[in-house]
């Protein structure tokens, strides 16, 4: 907890700015309702219920802003934290939205009569419908894999259900037309709804249109060990993009950027003079299973760069420790290649955790990079061959201590791999006294 607070302290100004901006955006409806009060109906708790309803609605609308991949607010935290914030905020939003009808009913049970089948009004039906859609959005997001919804279908469903939930919540407010009846309050909500519509159009139409104007061509598809493929993309009629080593991109292959069939992948190459990008992708899910079938010349669209998993943000470190598990080695390639290109002389350590020796993708390239810089490479095999002389099993504290330099607490640590491995290694590093603020990881497995 102390380490967590240390990290919070480090980012506290950014966090407060983010939190303050959020509150500035969500509080105006409540403040305006205070400025233009409405005659009371049923006391304090009734007003709390009403306030929760309006707050829940604005939080629901803000969820669209949070996930719109706006780079400026995401910059201090990284896009993964923004998506986690979106997820956890949804829990608090659901609590607030469920409290809204419950408090109103508790404060005035007489309105239960309105729920009679004879007198169900649009106002009540739309509110209940909105809540139901929000519940569906959350259930399908939390248990997507267990339910068996493909990622592409889930994304479309997530968007449609969320837009439906906002529309019904708006209808609910409009149909009741009591607390929002005053023209300034009504206009505020119209402006908020207008901003949301513009945002959705920007994200779903304008951004894909911009991506369409900057297509990429697949110029090579290379099979790697461990069911991995490396795709090289070259800009088609433009200069490419500027990115930091270790960042990731949303990649659309074989489909238009309007189709919402984009997937996040780490860029696995250093910024190149010809603008080309490399992605090393493992056959894991419904999209990546067919990645090897990609034809050379296929058009791709790249929405990038995103993420703060980059050594560039910690240039003062005496050295870096990279810990990659499985395909988690992909962004580390980008980081190592960039350091090698810059002729970085600092000592670095790489722990490459894989199941078998012959399943380490781009192994020869790792060896080559290690010769160009001061890099100590430690392959850790879960199931080593009989004649294996190196490390085996899982990464442990003793193993880390054995290979880490003396002043290892000052190093910056970059972790990428399966969630279970990340949690275990983070725990070991913190036990060794590495400050949590020195441990960086990128989280992708969010839904």
């Amino acid at each position: 907890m102390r380490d967590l607070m240390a990290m919070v302290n480090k980012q506290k100004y950014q966090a407060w700015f983010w939190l303050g901006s959020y509150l500035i955006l969500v509080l105006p409806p409540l403040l305006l309702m205070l400025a233009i009060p409405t005659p009371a109906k049923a006391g304090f708790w009734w007003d709390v219920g009403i306030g929760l309803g309006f707050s829940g609605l604005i939080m629901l609308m803000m969820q669209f802003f949070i996930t719109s991949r706006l780079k400026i607010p995401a910059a201090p935290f990284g896009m993964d934290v923004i998506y986690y914030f979106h997820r956890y905020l949804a829990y608090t939003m659901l609590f607030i939205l469920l409290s809204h009808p419950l408090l109103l009913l508790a404060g005035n049970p007489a309105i239960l009569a309105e729920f009679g089948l004879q007198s169900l009004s649009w106002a009540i039906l739309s509110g209940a419908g909105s809540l139901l859609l929000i519940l569906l959005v959350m259930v399908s997001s939390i248990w997507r894999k267990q339910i068996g919804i493909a990622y592409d279908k889930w994304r479309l469903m997530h968007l449609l259900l969320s837009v439906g939930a906002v529309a019904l919540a708006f209808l609910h407010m409009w149909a009741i037309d009591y607390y929002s009846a005053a023209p300034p309050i009504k206009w505020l909500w119209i402006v908020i709804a207008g901003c949301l519509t513009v945002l959705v159009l920007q994200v779903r139409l304008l951004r894909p249109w911009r991506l369409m104007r900057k297509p990429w061509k697949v110029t090579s598809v290379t099979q790697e060990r461990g069911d991995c493929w490396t795709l090289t993309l070259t800009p088609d009629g433009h200069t490419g993009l500027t990115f930091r080593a270790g960042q990731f991109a949303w990649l659309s292959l074989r489909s238009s950027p309007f189709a919402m069939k984009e997937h996040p992948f780490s860029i696995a190459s250093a910024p190149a003079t010809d603008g080309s990008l490399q992605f090393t992708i493992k056959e894991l899910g419904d999209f990546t299973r067919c990645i090897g079938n990609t034809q050379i010349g296929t058009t791709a669209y790249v929405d990038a760069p995103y993420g703060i998993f980059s050594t560039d943000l910690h240039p003062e470190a005496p050295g870096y420790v990279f810990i990659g598990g499985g395909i988690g080695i992909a962004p580390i390639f980008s980081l190592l290649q960039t350091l090698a290109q810059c002729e970085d002389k600092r000592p670095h350590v790489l722990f490459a955790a894989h199941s078998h020796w012959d399943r380490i993708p781009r192994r020869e390239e790792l060896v080559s990079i290690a010769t160009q810089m001061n890099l100590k490479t430690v392959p850790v095999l879960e199931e080593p061959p009989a004649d294996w002389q190196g490390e085996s099993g899982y990464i442990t504290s003793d193993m880390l201590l054995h290979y880490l330099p003396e002043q290892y607490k000052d190093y910056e640590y970059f972790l990428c791999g399966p969630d279970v491995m990340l949690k275990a290694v983070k725990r070991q590093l913190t036990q060794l006294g590495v400050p949590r603020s020195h441990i960086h990881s990128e989280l992708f497995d969010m839904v």
Partner: protein
Amino acid sequence: MREQLARLIALTTGLLMIAAVLLFAWVQHQQRQQMADTLDPMDWATLYPLHVASFMQGAEDLADTNYDRLAANPFRQRAWAGNAFALEYNAPRSHYYSQIDQQQSRRTLERNQPASCVHCHAAEAPGLVEL
């Protein structure tokens, strides 16, 4: 670690939202408590300016050409002969006139018709209910 940070910020945000709602309800409650003791309807203008402005707009509601319904339908005067409504019976006007049209009616002035409806339209109504 990063997930924990996101969780912490989200939880803090949710708690701040709930705190803001409680503050909002408390301030509204206090405002209404202050108003509960007033009997002058115009005092409401300080807290509900839009509502009072809308109410005052009703004062201009005099344009009904069919206002005098006895003149429009003279048979009623004969049909209601003996009843106070045979003296004066007008079309309803805006809320602004809800008390005036009863207090200033010939029914009330000449026949002492109780005009009990006026009580519920008065600012004193909550006090009268408590009595």
